[in-house]
């Protein structure tokens, strides 16, 4: 290797390298110079033509967004065209003066100016920005006549989005909104920057967000000739855009509205699933909000009203509110007992009033639960002690393993975003959840509350409905879904969205039949008998009550506290009893006992589904004392 004895030698070697470097620099610059010569002298005419004579702009042609329909074709999301007055900020020298002059022709409110300023900051090259939207025909006529005075100002027909069902589908369909920085980043990561050049809106929530790529379509390209003022004067070539696909939902808007009406102004959720397909028939969360407010950026006042409301209308309770299921857990526990061989259908127990565990006495005073109790009776009358004993015998791991098969404590994978996992309690879960050793320890007493659906158990209405659907269809667990077909907007081709169950839970039909028969009896002479009296059809159900322990840091408001301390009311049910076509879960927050408020809501929803009976008023709660008598 090079090794220089004398410093001068090293210096000369260095200088030789400098000469080489200079040569390299000169060659590279020579390369650049010849490239410039080639472009600017040899090819000048070609590029001159492209830039000067034919200023060609490559413009995106934004595709029409796909529409969304319910299962009977009712439109839930559609596009409509309106005229907007737009300014291209790059081509207008004095924006303020131009806006001032325009405001003498059409009304431009302070709100419009604010939005315009905001949009100018967010917009890309070329794009003109609306200063007024929803122009009337008269306004269009007035402005069109004077447009020549305003270079860089134009009237355009733009597509807007509309959700005709408004709050009824806000938690399902979601909404679109203007593309923001975060969306741009996501688009870049998906490698779709080119396809969104020109797009202004993107799905922000619900199906609009989860099916964004299907709904959006493919952007086309238009090459136009632009004159010196920057206006397109001639179309040179055009690759048309391909409109986005439509979505046909499994949702039944009639049922959706029935469930919404039945809940009335209470806080709660209804999820109804078609057991044979996993298709969601209704998914309601109340209170709701108007998605149309969000499309062009929600106003500060509207946003405040929604986000500060103690009722949290933006929260999708059907997917996100996880509560202990209370006694609606018992049908699943009963199955667990039968499948594990710990219980048989024929076994009868006496002296069921008290269960003692390490000195603790768990008491059940219901007269129907005292003696000669079999599994059927424990479901009909919701007897607790039977399940205390069963849970204690099975142990928490066996319970968790069995329940996991039904999707409890896991995201179901439904095709709208924002699902909560819930909690399927087990010693392993507790170790992960808590950090201190004493909290990580699993106590036998906790197994006992878990076995009647209290304690750490927390499931969403969606999980309850989907688990019930699997129970009534013979054990097929589906990924619940709202979209039935993705419909190609050009060819009309219908692409079905998955029809196969995710898993088939191995269960004996004899056991399923027994549990379902007991649930039918619940609605005939059990805890929900009063609510389902004279229904005119046979149905199955189970009431449940989730104990509320504390207000969990919510603000103390006089007069509201009593209501917020009431237990949450649950009901799960199916109809008709033979070959059910609907499996549903109803949650009414602070609704008290299951039979008190959730069951009446379920009755109305089932009445609509089975009999087509319209709903005139929100479901009436039954008297608390009557409900207490049945359930305690």
């Amino acid at each position: 290797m090079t090794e220089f004895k004398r410093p001068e030698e090293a210096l000369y070697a260095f200088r030789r390298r400098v000469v080489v470097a200079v040569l390299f620099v000169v060659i590279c610059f020579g390369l650049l110079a010849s490239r410039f010569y080639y472009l600017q002298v040899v090819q000048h005419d070609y590029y001159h033509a492209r830039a000067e004579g034919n200023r060609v702009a490559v413009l995106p042609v934004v595709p029409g967004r796909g529409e969304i329909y319910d299962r009977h074709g009712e439109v839930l999301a559609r596009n409509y065209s309106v005229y907007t007055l737009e300014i291209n900020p790059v081509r207008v020298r004095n924006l303020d003066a131009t806006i001032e002059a325009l405001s003498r022709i059409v009304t431009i409110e302070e709100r419009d100016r604010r939005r315009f300023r905001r949009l100018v900051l967010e917009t890309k090259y070329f794009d003109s920005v609306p200063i007024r939207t929803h122009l009337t025909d008269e306004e269009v006529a007035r402005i069109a006549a004077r447009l020549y005075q305003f270079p860089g100002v134009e009237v355009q027909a733009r597509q807007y989005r509309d959700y005709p069902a408004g709050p009824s589908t806000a938690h399902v369909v979601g909404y679109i909104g203007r593309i923001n920085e975060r969306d741009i980043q996501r688009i870049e990561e998906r490698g779709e920057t080119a396809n969104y050049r020109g797009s202004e809106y993107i799905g922000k929530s619900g199906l609009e967000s989860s099916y964004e790529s299907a709904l959006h379509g493919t952007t086309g390209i238009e090459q136009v000739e632009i004159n010196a003022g920057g206006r397109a004067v001639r179309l040179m070539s055009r690759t048309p855009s391909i409109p986005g696909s439509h979505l046909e939902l499994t949702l039944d808007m009639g049922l959706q509205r029935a469930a919404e009406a039945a809940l009335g102004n209470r806080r709660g959720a209804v999820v109804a699933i078609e057991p044979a397909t996993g298709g969601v028939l209704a998914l309601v969360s109340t209170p709701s909000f108007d998605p149309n407010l969000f499309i062009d950026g929600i106003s500060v006042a509207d946003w405040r009203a929604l986000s500060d409301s103690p009722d949290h209308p933006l929260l999708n309770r059907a997917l996100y509110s996880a509560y202990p299921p209370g006694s609606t857990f018992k049908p699943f526990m009963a199955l667990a007992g039968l499948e594990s061989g710990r219980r048989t259908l024929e076994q009868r127990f006496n002296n069921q009033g008290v269960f003692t565990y390490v000195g603790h006495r768990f008491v059940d005073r219901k007269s129907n639960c005292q003696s000669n109790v079999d599994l059927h009776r424990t479901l009909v009358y919701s007897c607790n002690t039977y399940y205390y004993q069963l849970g204690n015998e099975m142990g928490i791991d066996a319970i968790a393993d069995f329940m996991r098969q039904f999707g409890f404590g896991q995201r179901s994978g439904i095709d709208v975003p924002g699902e909560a996992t819930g909690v399927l309690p087990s010693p392993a879960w507790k170790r992960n959840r808590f950090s201190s050793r004493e909290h990580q320890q699993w106590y036998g007493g906790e197994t006992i509350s878990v076995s009647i659906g209290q304690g750490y158990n927390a499931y969403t209405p969606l999980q309850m409905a989907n688990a019930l659907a699997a129970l009534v269809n013979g054990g097929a667990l589906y990924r619940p879904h709202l979209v039935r077909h993705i419909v190609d907007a050009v060819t009309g081709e219908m692409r079905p969205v998955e029809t196969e169950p995710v898993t088939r839970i191995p269960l004996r039909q004899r056991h399923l039949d027994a549990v379902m028969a007991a649930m039918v009896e619940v609605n005939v002479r059990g805890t929900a008998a009063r609510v389902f009296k004279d229904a005119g059809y046979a149905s199955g159900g189970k009431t449940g009550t989730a104990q509320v322990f504390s207000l969990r840091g919510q603000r103390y408001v006089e007069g509201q506290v009593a209501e917020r301390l009431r237990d949450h009311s649950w009901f799960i049910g199916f109809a008709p009893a033979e070959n059910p076509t609907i499996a549903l879960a109803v949650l009414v927050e602070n609704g008290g006992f299951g039979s008190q408020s959730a069951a009446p809501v379920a009755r109305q929803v089932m009445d609509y589904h089975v009999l087509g009976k319209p709903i005139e008023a929100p479901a009436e709660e039954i008297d608390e004392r009557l409900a207490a008598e049945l359930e305690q």
Partner: protein
Amino acid sequence: MSEFRFHPLALIRAGLRPLDPFLLLVLAGLLGYGYALMTSASPERLPSLQVHLMVGLATMWLVSLVPPKRLLSLAVPLYLIGVVLLLGVFFFGETSKGAKRWLDIGVARIQPSELMKIAVPLMLAWYFQQREGMIRFGSFIVAIVLLAIPLGLIVIQPDLGTSLLVGAAGLYVIFFAGLSWKLIVPVVMVGAIGIGAIVGFGDMLCQPEVDWQVLREYQKQRVCTLLDPTQDPLGKGFHIIQSTIAIGSGGLWGKGWLDGTQTHLAFIPERHTDFIFSVLAEEFGLVGALALLGGYLLLILRGFLIAAQAPTLASRLLAGAITMIIFTYAFVNMGMVSGILPVVGVPLPFVSYGGTALVTLCVGLGILMSIERSRVAAKE
């Protein structure tokens, strides 16, 4: 003591003495050119450009006051700080647009890779100075490791533009330190064959299912866009098509200052930063472009003269490497805008808008001036 008298004029003269008049003159020309272009491309940025210029020139002056010895004594600490900060980016960095480049240190967000453009050549020059008279094969291995550590951390961010500049800076020092031609020639050959292969088989390699292993997806796209910009006219190819039109339509004399249609109809994206050369070529034509090349050439020749005459090994290596970095900035940027190199985020030195790059480059010039001053001082 009694003889001490305060001469403000003499003080100013002494303070300004390190500033090399030749470099200063060429720099003034380049900065003035940049200012004129900014007036056309993005006049609303002129006020902040003025601030950048002031900060840049002040930095250059301050650095030129520090003797080379003192600068070299900072080599190790600067290098170590840089590596620690890069590790910080790796573990706690902020992700923006798919890359992790920024570090939030409470008071501000910093981009440590920028520091490395100076710290790496400084460190390597310092190292070779320590080995003076005993430079063997092993010394080059050590030097390459010293370069590879920060370079690796920048490559994985990923930041192609900065990796290129930092890697080049280190390799220039190693080259000037006398790495054998027997090693340089094969590496250059492999590189040339590689580039030749990519150009020759571009169509095949650019199929979406081909995975390039060493390069990230977005880097592959940039190379493929260069090979055929029309493939993606709305996406990445848009930049190259439009800047080529701007340059070509400029012709021999250009369309005149403030009259570039491509520029003023907003056809050129990033026209104030990486693509400012297309504004220049459109408005001032081939003559303007060659004038810029000439300016850079003068700057580079002066830099090499300083290097060739520098009194110590370290200052020679440092001066040579800094000069080559300025060349690399200029060549990569103009090559990319005119469509002979892929789109790499490298600004046009002293002309593109951007305070950080300007300050880095001014530090480089300051070091050159300090080295030249030390030679003159040694003679005196």
